[in-house]
Each structure stands twice: as C-alpha cells, then as structure tokens.
C-alpha cells in the first residue's frame, strides 16, 4: 500500500473510484497515524515536547505526493508526518523516531521535527520555519543536471510565506528554470496567528507569479482537485518551469500538543473542521457506490497498522549513550572528544 505513491506517474489523474479509494486510504492512514501519535505521550514514550499534527491537511500531503515519483526529492516543515507517510514512510520507524528511539528513522536523534529518509528522497523535516526551502533549489540543480526529470518539492506552511528565504529560493528556481515545486500548506494559522494577522496580500500564488513561477491556489477539501492542481504545476516543474501551489485547508487542532487554541472561537473551529478532506473523500466514495462497511473495514485495518507502530515504538529502546558522539562528522572521522575525557586530561596531572 505504501508503494502506491511511488508508483504514481505523471499522467492525468483518473477520477474513477479505485483511484479515489487509494487517495482516501492514504489520507486515512495519515489521519489515523496522527490520532495515534498522541498516545506515545500518554504512554510516556514520546521524546520531544513538540508534536505538530497535520489533521485537516491530509489532502495536501496525499494530493501532492500522488504526483511525485521515484527519484523525486522533498523537504518538509515541522508538520510533516502526513507528507512523509504519503510518500511511503514506514509508520513503525516514524513512530519510533517520534519517540526518540534507536529504531527510528534517525536513531532517536531527530524526532518528529527532524525526520528524514534518503531512500524515499526525504531530505528532511525542519524545525526552522522556512529552513528546508532552499535545499530544493540545490536538489533541483542536481536533478536538472541529471536530466531524468526528477522534481524536488518543498513543503511548508503559510508561516513560511513570511520568511525571506522563500522568495530568494523562488527567485533562484525561476531564474535557473529548475525542476522545483514549492507547496504551501495554508492551514490558516502560524501558531496562534491567523494568516490575516500576518499577511495582507492573501493571494499567495500571485507572489510566486511575480517571481516568474507558475503559481496556483487550490481548495484542500477535495483531494482529487488537489491532485489535479498539483499535477499541473508538477508537469511544469518536470519540464523546468518551477511552480508554486497553495493548498487551502484548516488546522483542526492546536499548534502543538499543549495548545488548546484559545485564540480562536469554538464556532470558527467547528466551521473550519467542516473542511474535512477525509470525510469528504469518504462521502464521495459512498456516493459513488462503495459500501460504508467496506470502508469501515479499511479504516480498521489502518488502525491496526498504526497500533502496531505504537507498539513497535514502545518496545524499542533508547539510543545508547555512546551514540551521542556518533555522526557529528563523517563515518571515517574521529568522534568529538567528550567533555569528560577532556576534563580527565586536565585533572590528570601529577
């Protein structure tokens, strides 16, 4: 199932049922993963006070990733679980990494905000708003040279639209005709700040166009629409016309685990949560003939998958203390000297 996204090609998006079902499945996996991840905390197994759920944004992750193919690379922001999953990540290793465990993608050093997998082209999540964006310019340079049509995609939030480095990166991508795609997942909030309180020019794609990119905005309610819009800019990017896509959605929950969103009204939140891409896809499936029971079974399978991921993470051990000095530098380089060793030397006088 996780291989689907990788197999997706760049042809037009068929709108038939089995296709939507696949998109639904991926979105449901993201949703369930995110619902489950909190349990790590409950069980005292999560490292990291910072856990950012992408519930409500599943169509962005799944819709865009459905247009990606093997060889493509990407970076994400701090709210990147869904993107990584949609791109084929192993929930076990993700959950373990979020728990700061040895079996995680980064051996427990990175955590939720610094997860990466070179095998899947994931050049890394980032805890710096906007921090992962320019890397796709460099990856795009490499792709362009290789000439295989691989695209590098930067995923980020509306908050990164306020970071100068995005505009520097878009300018470079446009100037050099790079196979690069900038995807803004506009969930309306940067922490407690609504986008209207952070930006005046609300048509974000116009900014990209002013820099010479192909820029579009799409509503995130319907994942097939997201995929279609993504396909358009992705096709451009594959042929050296860099693109920008803003996906309009809503952050269902607080910014991070402890945030109960006191800065927004319950009514507004309820309204926002009506834009639910998972339920929307489910309804569409049912409308076009899928049995609800069939989908229930699918959902339960996914729940089992994610429960197992939790168990895997919980059963995994902490990284050994000695691993602390590993991987600061390349594998053949000496490790940094521990402070204790240095103290020993100072005190070892006779």
């Amino acid at each position, binding site marked *: 199932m996780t291989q689907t996204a990788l197999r997706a090609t760049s042809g037009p998006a068929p709108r038939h049922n089995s296709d939507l079902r696949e998109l639904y499945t991926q979105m449901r996996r993201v949703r369930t993963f995110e619902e489950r991840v909190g349990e790590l905390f409950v069980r005292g197994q999560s*490292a*990291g*006070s910072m856990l950012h759920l992408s519930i409500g944004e599943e169509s962005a992750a799944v819709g865009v990733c459905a247009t990606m193919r093997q060889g493509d690379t990407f970076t994400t922001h701090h709210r990147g679980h869904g993107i990584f999953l949609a791109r084929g990540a192993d929930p076990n290793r993700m959950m373990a990494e979020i728990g700061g*465990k040895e079996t995680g993608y980064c051996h427990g050093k990175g955590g939720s905000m610094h997860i990466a997998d070179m095998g899947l082209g994931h050049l890394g999540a980032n805890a710096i708003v906007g921090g992962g964006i320019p890397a796709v310019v460099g990856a795009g340079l490499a792709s362009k040279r290789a000439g295989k049509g691989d695209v590098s995609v930067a995923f980020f939030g509306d908050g990164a639209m306020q970071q100068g480095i995005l505009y520097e990166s878009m300018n470079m991508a446009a100037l050099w005709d790079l196979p690069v795609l900038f995807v803004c997942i506009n969930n309306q909030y940067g*922490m407690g700040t609504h986008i209207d309180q952070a930006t005046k020019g609300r048509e974000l794609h116009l900014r990209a166009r002013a820099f010479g990119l192909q820029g579009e905005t799409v509503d995130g309610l319907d994942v097939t629409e997201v995929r279609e819009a993504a396909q358009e800019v992705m096709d451009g990017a594959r042929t050296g016309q860099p693109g920008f896509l803003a996906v309009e959605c809503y952050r269902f929950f607080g910014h991070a685990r402890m945030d109960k969103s006191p800065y927004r009204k319950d009514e507004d939140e309820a309204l926002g949560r009506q834009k639910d891409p998972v339920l929307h896809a489910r309804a569409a499936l049912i409308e076009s003939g899928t049995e609800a029971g069939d989908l229930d079974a699918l959902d339960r399978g996914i729940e089992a998958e994610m429960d197992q991921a939790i168990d895997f993470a919980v059963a995994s051990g*902490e*990284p050994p203390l000695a691993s602390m000095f590993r991987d600061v530098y390349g594998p053949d380089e000496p490790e940094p000297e521990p402070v204790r060793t240095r*103290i020993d030397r100072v005190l070892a006088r006779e």
Partner: protein
Amino acid sequence: MVQMTYRDALRQALRDAMTEDDRVLVIGEEVGRYGGAYGVTKGLIEEFGPDRLLDTPISEPAIVGAAVGAAMAGLKPVAELMYVDFIGMTMDQLGNQAAKIRYMFGGQIGVPMVLRTQGGTGRSAGAQHSQSLEAYVLHTPGLRLAMPATVADAYHLLRGALRQPDPVVFIEHKALYTLKEEVDLSSPVPDWGKAAIRRRGDDLVIVTYSRQVHNALKAAQDLSERGIEATVIDLRTLNPLDFDTVRTEVERVGRAMVVSEGVMTAGVAAELSARIHEECFDFLHDPVVRVAGEDIPISVSVALEAASVPTPALLRETAERLVA
C-alpha cells in the same frame, strides 16, 4: 516578599517598564494574543493593547531590523526571538546593524533595544530548539548580554536592560520559567553589570551563569556534605563582564571551575578560562577546569539530551577531583 516564578517576574518587569515609559513596546511572534510561546507576555495585550504588543509575521531578520529602526526613531523596543536557536537568521541585523550603528555613525545615535529570547536544553526540543548560543553574542562588540539565573534577576536584569543605551541580548533559560522563589522586587539586587556571589567557600570558585548557577549550587551543596566548600559566582551579565569579582574570589581561593551550557569549543567557558588563567596565573594551584556542553548537536532523545550538557553530578565530581 512574594513567591513568584521566573516567568511572572519577567512579565512584571515588562509591565512595569511599559507602565513607566510608553515608548516601550514588545514586538515578536506570538507575543500578543498568544502571550508568548513560553507565556511570558500573557495578559499584557489586554493591559496595553495591540499597539504596544505587536504580533509579527514569522520574519526574524525583519523583526530584529524593525526593532533597530524603532530604537533609532526613539522607541524602546523589546523584540522577542522565540528561540535563541533562530539567532542565526538575525545575526546580520544584530551584528552588522544593531551592534555597529553607534560606532559607524560616529556616536550620533544608539540602538537602545532589547532582544529577549530563551535557550538551553530541558524540553527535548531537538537540535534546532535547545541550543545555548550566547557565545556568538559575547563575541560581537556592541552587543550587551544578560542571562538571568534567579527570579529576582529575571525582573531586575530585564529592567536594567531596558535602561541601557545600547542593544542588549537578554537570554532566558527555558528550564527556569517555572522556577519559584521568594523575592522582594523592590529590594536592591547587585547593579547591572555586577556579578553575584551566590555562595561562598574557600576550596574552589565556580563561575557560571543562567541555569548552570542552579546546577552549581546543587553541586556545592553535595560538596559541602563531603567537606568541600565552593564559592559560586553568578555572572548575571556577560557583557559587561564583572571580572573584578571573579578575580578577587579566584585569587582568594586559588582554584576555579567555569561552567557553561553552551558547547565547549570557543564558547563562553573558553573566554572565562582564558581570562582567569591570564590574570590570576600566580594564584592558581591548578588549571581552571572548563565544564561545558559537548561539542555536538542536541538530540531529541531525552537520554542523549540530558547527557549533552553539564549536570550537577558532573560538576560535583569534577570539583571533587579538582580539589583533591
């Protein structure tokens, strides 16, 4: 005397400064409606309104740059950087602009701004949210640097920072916000620029600042039970640096250990060690020992994070061996 947290003392300092001087304004991400990522500015927007607490876009370079311009134009901005880890985005505005404007322009004008931020480990927030980067600031002439360890200092140093004619980087420690102490905010504390001797002993001097003051005091307590008495100096401000207090104590005692949570190489501990050796050489029985953060990034793993910076146990052991 009141019981108060470090967080509340910081808020009180802002409140008092804003009440006294309407040129003081707070500018940063989430400082208004949200009340600050660590809750320091909570409630202030209700008291002072959105024109005094400016929620900004997520634009660190421009936040610092705007504070520079506001200060030059006669306001007293308190800019907030949510994590000191983001200082790298702002080092041009801080180091090339704020720090140098008075000098480059021949003394015509200063940049009386405060950059409040917080750093350090303690919440397993990972490599980009747990650093102690004060050495970058200390190495930049023109920038003052304050790092409060106590609740009283959270209040008084922030008030002091707001009285400076020059830019002050004010670094809180994320693990101290909930620290609660009895304080009398009206009672005198050492002046701005003066170190505080938090404990006095004759066997060694521990020179430190920020959270490590508490680690040092814990270690000193344990040492005392083993018959070793340590002086603990809390530097409070690193620029200005009150080296006179350090010198006097080290010359009196003859042994010193310097402690910093920042990574060891080319960090604050290096400066302190170099300076003590240089100026107190003939009084030293032993070399000054540096205890500092490991020369590695911070892991999100709880275990690795804790082991990456000086612990009270490490301070105690090291002190014991030094004195032995």
